[in-house]
């Protein structure tokens, strides 16, 4: 079945993931309501997203919807169940899906650290030159001259004693 996803959102009451899509009949939008069952404020959003994406009845419709987007929608639902405001939930999602350059990751527990690492891995993989890439070079040397003209990194303290 040809299905072009247009929009995907969440309804809180009763909870459901709603997909707006087009099928073969171009120009005619259709809506699919996928009820969310057995989800509480204690549930794991990434797991719920995976389950929905692999659900045999919805699978083909959700092909173009990323796991990440579904996970985010479930996070909204969980925030709602926790009684958080939309702004609070958005802030929480932002914190969980980005790296705060000021945050000391040494202070996180294993699970939180693994999450941050997986966010970083996305960029790593995007920029990664793999061994089987046709233009892979093992030893790449690039000189970055460190002369007087350079601007300070801005990370050093003002005082001359400290770095």
């Amino acid at each position, binding site marked *: 079945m040809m299905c072009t996803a247009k929009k995907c959102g969440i309804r809180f009451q009763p909870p459901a993931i709603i997909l707006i899509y087009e099928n073969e009949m171009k120009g005619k939008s259709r809506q699919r309501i996928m009820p969310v069952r057995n989800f509480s404020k204690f549930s794991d959003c990434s797991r719920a997203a995976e389950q929905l994406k692999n659900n045999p009845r919805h699978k083909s419709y959700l092909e173009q919807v990323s796991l990440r987007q579904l996970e985010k929608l479930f996070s909204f639902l969980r925030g709602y169940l926790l009684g958080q405001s939309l702004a609070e939930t958005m802030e929480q999602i932002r914190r969980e899906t980005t790296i705060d350059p000021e945050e000391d*990751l040494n202070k996180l527990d294993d699970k939180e650290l693994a999450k941050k690492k997986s966010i970083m891995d996305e960029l790593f993989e995007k920029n990664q030159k793999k061994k089987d890439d046709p233009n892979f070079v093992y030893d790449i040397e690039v000189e970055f001259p460190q002369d007087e003209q350079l601007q300070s*990194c801005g990370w050093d303290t003002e005082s001359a004693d400290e*770095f």
Partner: protein
Amino acid sequence: MAEDRAKPCELDQEKYDADDNVKIICLGDSAVGKSKLMERFLMDGFVPQQLSTYALTLYKHTATVDGRTVLVDFWDTAGQERFQSMHASYYHKAHACIMVFDVQRKVTYRNLATWYTELREFRPEIPCIVVANKIDADRKMTQKSFNFTKKFSLPLYFVSAADGTNVVKLFNDAIRLAVSYKQNSRDFMDEVLQELENFDLEQKEEDVPAPEQHGSTESPSSS
């Protein structure tokens, strides 16, 4: 306890006294890319040894320096850096240090000071290279100056474990530095430690034949 007794041989550090062995340690905050750098350098040729009891990963590598074969052990942290401090044995007999920060995260640069202080407590003289990793994510950072390295006159390498920039050079230089340190150093601390070890041995001979001291809670005998 039987298992425990078998373990220390994995971590035998005596071998680092042998001429053809060097030990290079990696330092730096969580998630700066220490392991990714190791893996990029060694590619498929690595078999990391997880010593989880010590929160430590060992990478073995064979290098050739000036026609001589050198066995290199790279020591990488496995979560122990979380405590912003490493066990003394991590530094023990190290011949060079690779200290990494993430150019995208200021805090990892600021924490270099802590790592460096601890390194110098244990190894006052060994060569230390500072590594600015992840330059693929922010190329502009290679145009900046970093006072920390200037203050301590440490070499600074701009690298990317992702695209490979300067990774091989970094490790080859580190190996070279480790080897030359080992050949030339009359490190005061090394000598003191050697003295202490000898002293220790003499004392032990006098003592009642003592079993291995691991986990012992005895208070040290007063001298």
